[in-house]
């Protein structure tokens, strides 16, 4: 048995891809094909300025998608990410017109996001109703509170200091850091292991002594924190705070996650895949915009991609079921 001898060492490179058997590879190929295709067909696509643009665009959704990946890995879903973002920056940012320091405002925003995520986690683990329904509720509640408190008013202008995080490649660098940290967490830590286990079989995990409830709460809390963090970048990029921010981001995030190969049923997938998924979606949407395609088409394309990705996943699940039974 040759496999037995190799058992000892798993190379570092393998371990990033390892557990997913290179499921990310096809998306990476699609990304390269997309870039080549758009570069030849769209004038101005192959330009530094444009890549900077794309990188800034995918940063916000990419960071939210990272949190969403953890949630979906456990077999859950978080529809409230966009609302948490809006809540955190609108209410946390209320200190800006009052002249509060950025060192007060930033932590407040992040704290608010974390608390809302925690609320999600507690509700989901206390009430035996699918996460889909709970977060559908909190999505509307968080957005509702935001609208009531701000009465729909924008916060603008924003001091210059808040723009630093949104300048040039800074958002992208933050995205890479978040992705890197969470690749490490999902693949190397006990918490990461537990996520895959819970998504793959919640009962089996429970009987193995995995603290299922605690980990689930933590996952939604992280998702809330990352949504708020993505909000900081959004504010830095746009230069104002609007209570309508983040509308529909949950769909873009879910799209990035499933296009990135994470199973909507939980248990399989990766943060790296989500990064690729977000990149691919970003490329396609930019390509469409640059070809002056009506923006209404964007939603349609996202929808088709999501259904395509989920169908592939579902087929794969059925196949493995039929093998094992």
């Amino acid at each position, binding site marked *: 048995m040759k496999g037995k001898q190799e*058992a000892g060492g798993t190379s570092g490179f393998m371990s990033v891809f390892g557990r997913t058997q290179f499921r990310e590879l096809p998306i990476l190929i699609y990304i390269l094909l997309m870039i080549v295709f758009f570069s030849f067909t769209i004038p101005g696509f192959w330009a530094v300025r444009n890549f900077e643009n794309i990188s800034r665009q995918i940063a916000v959704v990419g960071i939210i998608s990272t949190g969403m990946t953890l949630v979906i890995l456990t077999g859950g879903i978080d529809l409230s990410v966009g609302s948490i973002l809006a809540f955190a920056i609108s209410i946390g940012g209320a200190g800006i017109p009052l002249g509060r320091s950025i060192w007060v405002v930033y932590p407040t925003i992040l704290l608010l996001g974390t608390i809302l995520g925690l609320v999600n986690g507690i509700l989901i683990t206390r009430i035996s109703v699918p996460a889909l329904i709970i977060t559908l509720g909190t999505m509307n509640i968080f957005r509702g509170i935001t609208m009531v408190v701000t009465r729909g008013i924008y916060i603008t202008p924003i001091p210059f200091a808040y723009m630093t995080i949104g300048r040039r490649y800074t958002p992208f660098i933050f995205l890479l850091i978040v992705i890197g940290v969470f690749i490490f967490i999902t693949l190397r830590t006990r918490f990461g292991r537990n996520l895959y286990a819970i998504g793959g079989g919640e009962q089996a*995990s429970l009987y193995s002594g995995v603290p299922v409830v605690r980990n689930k709460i933590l996952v939604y809390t992280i998702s809330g924190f990352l949504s708020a963090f993505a909000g900081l970048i959004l504010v830095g990029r746009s230069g104002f705070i609007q209570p309508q921010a983040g509308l529909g981001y949950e769909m873009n995030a879910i799209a990035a996650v499933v296009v990135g190969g994470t199973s909507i049923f939980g248990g399989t997938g990766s943060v790296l895949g989500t990064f690729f998924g977000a990149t691919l979606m970003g490329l396609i949407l930019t390509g469409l915009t640059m070809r002056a395609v009506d923006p209404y088409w964007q939603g349609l394309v996202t929808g088709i991609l999501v259904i395509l990705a989920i169908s592939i996943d579902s087929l794969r699940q059925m196949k493995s079921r039929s093998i*094992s039974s």
Partner: protein
Amino acid sequence: MIVFERLSKKFPGVKALDDVSFRVEEGEIHGLVGENGAGKSTLIKILSGIITDYEGKLFIDGREMSFTAAHQAQNQGVATIFQELTVIRDLSVAENIFLGREPVRMGGVVDTNFMREKSREVLQYLGSTVNPGEIVGRLSIANQQIVEICKALVLNAKIIVMDEPTSSLTEHEVKQLVTFIRRLKERGLTILYVSHKMEEVFHICDTISVLRDGKFIGSVNKEESTPDEVIRMMVGRSMEAMFPPRERHIGEKLLEVRSLSRKGEFEDVSFSLYEGEIVGFAGLIGAGRTELAKTLIGAARPGAGEIRIGKRVFRGFSHPHEAYQAGIAYLPEDRKGEGLVACLTVRENIALSILRRISSYLWVKPQAELSVVDGFIKNLRIKVYHHDQVAETLSGGNQQKVVISKLLATQTDIFIFDEPTRGIDVGAKYEIYRIMNDLTKEGKGIIFISSELPEILGISDRIYCMRAGQLIKEFTHEEASPEKIMHVLTGGNII
């Protein structure tokens, strides 16, 4: 008349039916008995068109049938009432009876009055007082069964198959059901009555057929046979060569459970377990053994009673992790749903229960993990080509070894093995018994839950019998015999 001719059906690793031939005469109540796993369910699934790929032939009234779907069997007059009822709880009795073939008036409007009238007729015919307008979810299980029977009658069923119909009925309801069944017989219907309750079968049936290990053992006439004879037919088989030799070295008391109760599941259960001992828990499905196990490992809280482990006394655990720390590990009966995380690798599955021990701070230490995992793969002879093989691609026996490794890794002293050999082949069973023997050699204690009598008798040092949530009898290895245990479990009155 139903004729089964040389029926065989294989599932991966198990021969569920092996060359079964017998006949059920028209207009009789025909009992089909056998232990769990004898092939009764497979047989009725073939008869009702649910299992369609089998070898052999099936004749109804002399014509060969080859059903490709359940509704074809219904069209040929075969109605099956499964243990899991298929009524829709939110609909009314009449709506359930006519489900899928609602009578319509002109314009496509459902003829509610006709449905009610017809339903009342059928119910009255059976002598039932159920109101056709009642919502089915509000009825007792017994009355829900009546609704299913009515459904079959409206369909003009000629053959009614009943799978363990009395398993969740009270004594009074059983009597009622028996009257209904007799009425059906008077009307000329043929009834195939599947059960393993001896008393009942002898009370109701005209003829009794016995299956064992997928084979047909024989049919007897009620008048010419006794429960004893039928039980012997059900369990009789050679036990040598199925079990590895076992030496017994019983040590100190490991676990004592005192008057443990959980409402609706089990009541006042007391027992003990010693070092080096395998204690069998025999019972029919639904006797409360798994519920007891799940309470012992902290998946549920007991209502009353206490668990003593060594000198420590517990009033139950609130999470399986607490139970591990106290020293109890559980091998769930549902391997795919509760034992194994199918989409993870062998390595990740084995390490799941000991992540804390092989981590420093938050990180899992790959070296520590691999040394544990590879050790188990070698010692338990798990057949994998790599420890990163996805668990669901393994055979049933090897999957079970992975789950067992996960338990052993916890280094606890008390193990609960719930149906550890279900759905795995004979060779792998032998290996699992061997692993259990080895564990007891190290002074561990095993609570062994199984619905297969031979293995309970084959490897247990003591045997507790559970029925309807109560521990009703204890046998030593020497006292126990399949007949005695079967009598206790089925409520047969000869001991």
